[in-house]
């Protein structure tokens, strides 16, 4: 059986307990219902979002989806669902349709849950990738000036297609990362750089797979940058000047993978605490293309 991916931080016992409770709930629910699939294209009202619906949706997810998509939708042998935009489900009706009918030709089967259960599940999935807008103390306008000015953040990061390519895109970072997470990323940039890659991802250049590499070629050149892709024979990376290098491993004298390393400076030494607040406020406000 294929394997599961690296989870984010969590307490194992809490997750195991939650899963166990969720699973028993879900199995009981499954026994109580026979499948009554939603007809494709059926007109849907808003997805149910009461706390009870959310708990039920979480239970359905743990029982039927987490096996492939990860316990928190972080992805596994199925794609990550904790993302702001689901490529195959532009709207709620499409999401419900996919869960109901499955995706022919893929490993995604048709669900045997009832229509109300699928609606709860869809609401849960929809919420996985989206953080609510937080109220933070800083001034986002001043934060934007710091981002563009003294922070020189755009050297490495892009917002709506403007900026440097080295770091993760920040266009919708406010939907994906909390203020607490963003503050820590500014003060300790390496804290959330993964120690290992998501092994079953073809797309190794995902932010979740951020890896800084240093190579020495057999003719004595030292190069370094962020890995874009890698296979048994070749390596592709982008250097700090934005140039893309593709090397054959047989031509390298040394290859070092700097796990847990970030080339980003720690901004506690650059900005005052109030300025950090402003920058966090700006980042939290970045919620995608207006």
């Amino acid at each position: 059986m294929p394997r599961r991916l690296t989870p984010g931080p969590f307490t194992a016992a809490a997750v195991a307990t939650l899963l166990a409770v969720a699973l028993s709930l879900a199995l009981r629910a499954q026994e109580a219902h026979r499948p009554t699939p939603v007809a494709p294209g059926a007109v849907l009202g808003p997805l149910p979002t009461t706390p009870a619906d959310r708990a039920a949706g979480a239970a359905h997810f743990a029982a039927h989806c987490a096996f492939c998509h990860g316990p928190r939708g972080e992805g596994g042998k199925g794609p990550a669902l904790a993302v702001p935009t689901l490529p195959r489900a532009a709207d709620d009706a499409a999401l419900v349709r996919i869960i109901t009918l499955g995706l022919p030709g893929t490993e995604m089967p048709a669900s045997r849950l009832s229509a109300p259960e699928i609606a709860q599940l869809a609401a849960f999935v929809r919420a996985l990738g989206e953080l609510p807008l937080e109220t933070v103390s800083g001034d986002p306008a001043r934060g934007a000036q710091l981002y563009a000015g003294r922070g020189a953040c755009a050297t490495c990061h892009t917002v709506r297609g403007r900026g440097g390519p080295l770091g993760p895109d920040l266009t919708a970072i406010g939907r994906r990362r909390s203020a607490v997470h963003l503050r820590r990323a500014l003060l300790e940039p390496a804290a959330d750089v993964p120690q290992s890659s998501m092994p079953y991802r073809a797309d190794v250049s995902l932010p979740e797979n951020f890896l800084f590499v240093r190579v020495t070629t057999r003719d004595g050149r030292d190069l370094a940058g962020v890995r874009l892709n890698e296979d048994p024979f070749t390596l592709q990376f982008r250097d700090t000047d934005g140039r893309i290098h593709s090397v054959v491993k047989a031509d390298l004298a040394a290859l070092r993978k700097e796990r847990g390393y970030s080339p980003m400076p720690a901004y506690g030494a650059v900005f005052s605490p109030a300025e950090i607040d402003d920058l966090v406020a700006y980042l939290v406000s970045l919620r995608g293309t207006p």
Partner: protein
Amino acid sequence: MNPFRFTAVPRPLARPVRLRLWLAVAFAPLLASGLAATARAAAPLDVPYARLLRAAATPGDWLTYSGSYDGLRHSALAQITAANVKDLRAAWVYQAREAGGKLECTPLVVDGILYVTERPNIVTAIDGRSGRALWTYRRPLPSDVQGCCGPVNRGLAVLGDTLYLATYDCHLVALDAATGRERWDVVVADYKTGHSITGAPLAVKDKIVVGISGGEYGIRGFLDAYDAATGARAWRFWTVPGPGEPGHETWGDGDGWRTGGAPTWVTGTFDPQLNLLYWGTGNPGPDIDGDNRPGDNLYSCSLLALDPDTGKLRWHFQHTPHDVHDRASNQIPVLLDLELGGRLRQVVVQANRNGFYYILDRVTGEFLLGTPFAPMNWAKGLDAKGRPIVDPAATPTAAGTLVLPGMGGATNWFSPTYSPQTGLFYVQTTLNNGDIFYKMKQRYVPGAPYLGGDFRNPLGQEPESVVKALDVRTGALRWEFPLNTASMAGLLSTAGGLVFGGSREGWFFALDARTGAPLWRFSCGGSIMANPITFLVDGRQHVAICAASAIFLFAL
């Protein structure tokens, strides 16, 4: 490949020939060997049992899942060699009908025609010269079939003029090999109770042997044989013994045996002289929580030796008693005659998912050798009878237990190969794939996943594969070739001194069988999760591999 070879006829005839070709393709079901009238005369397909017995001696075809009954996945073809493999190039690429998803198929090749399975439930005959489809069989797949790992299919069996397909929704279908038309269709099991089939059937004498999947769904495993002519079931061997049968006592007093798993999802091997069928069994259910199945849980995680005429068990060897880490023993059992301790022994060799390399006497099942071929922390070794000395600290708990190898195992379903030329056993091995196993109580619901827990790989663990070459007599490592990430590609060795393999990133490559040096590679552009094969087309050696949703063919 010369593109004109296909229509190598006198110029003036070019147009009529093309027309006739078009007609032949259009009416392929009617004119199964329609090309006979023009460029090539193909006799009607006929693969009697006697031809299957000679498969290793007729390497121009690829007649069974592993190429020959002994499971070596070694070819006597030697046109492609370590010296000239650098000139290997793509002859054609066949794109699967349904885009998306992975092909895990080992094609069969008979007289220059490939017979492949595409997902879901599609069979296509492909002309080896051109890569053009000659006929296609499609069978609708219900949308609610559940399986742990998707609607894949690993290939067909052929016997006489009939192809045999075992479907994801658990039917066994007989097809006229000339046309792809259905002859009969029987139900092996109910897919709604979590059964599925992903493996290739095996034709033995006048029977078709079919294994079952569903070890993650609490099925009760079995191995079936069907009359090749009629589809009538000839026998069923329950891999979890029922009340009153020997081995039932290894499941405790409760009902755990009813959901005991032990599926038979990878094709086995066969010794015609001993008249014994060798077949591996998968994990007991639920995978991770063993509380309701106290005991060894026979015949899960075992190798079975069965009489192919009756389905009666001759002997068994259990690699992993009372498994709680999904140590399915479904890896190919490779049948060899080896000189061991100054004596020629008939043995069966297996590199097991649990991390040990085993040599058993294949007449008696006697344990002859077992040695680790991958890092592990779940067992401290094997005792004199080959039983693992399990580390209790590796038992899954609610809080989580880090175990190496992880859920995917030290190796898995993808085929190993043995080369008589080098005396080396080649197996793709996964390293650094420890998982945290979480045990949790789960109630069985028919048709729903039944793992009794969860598993995740922890930070700092980045699984990677290596191709390992082991001394077949000792299991000692001779060389290894590192791959970047965990691969699910099988291996093929050839008398040309080569080992072919594949990577998750899509490289198809050839290594020097003696040294492991990489000699050739081609990027297929999508994950390789299939086994390579080799065969002749027009007397020239070709090599084929499935990658992502395409089939690639290579020749000098």
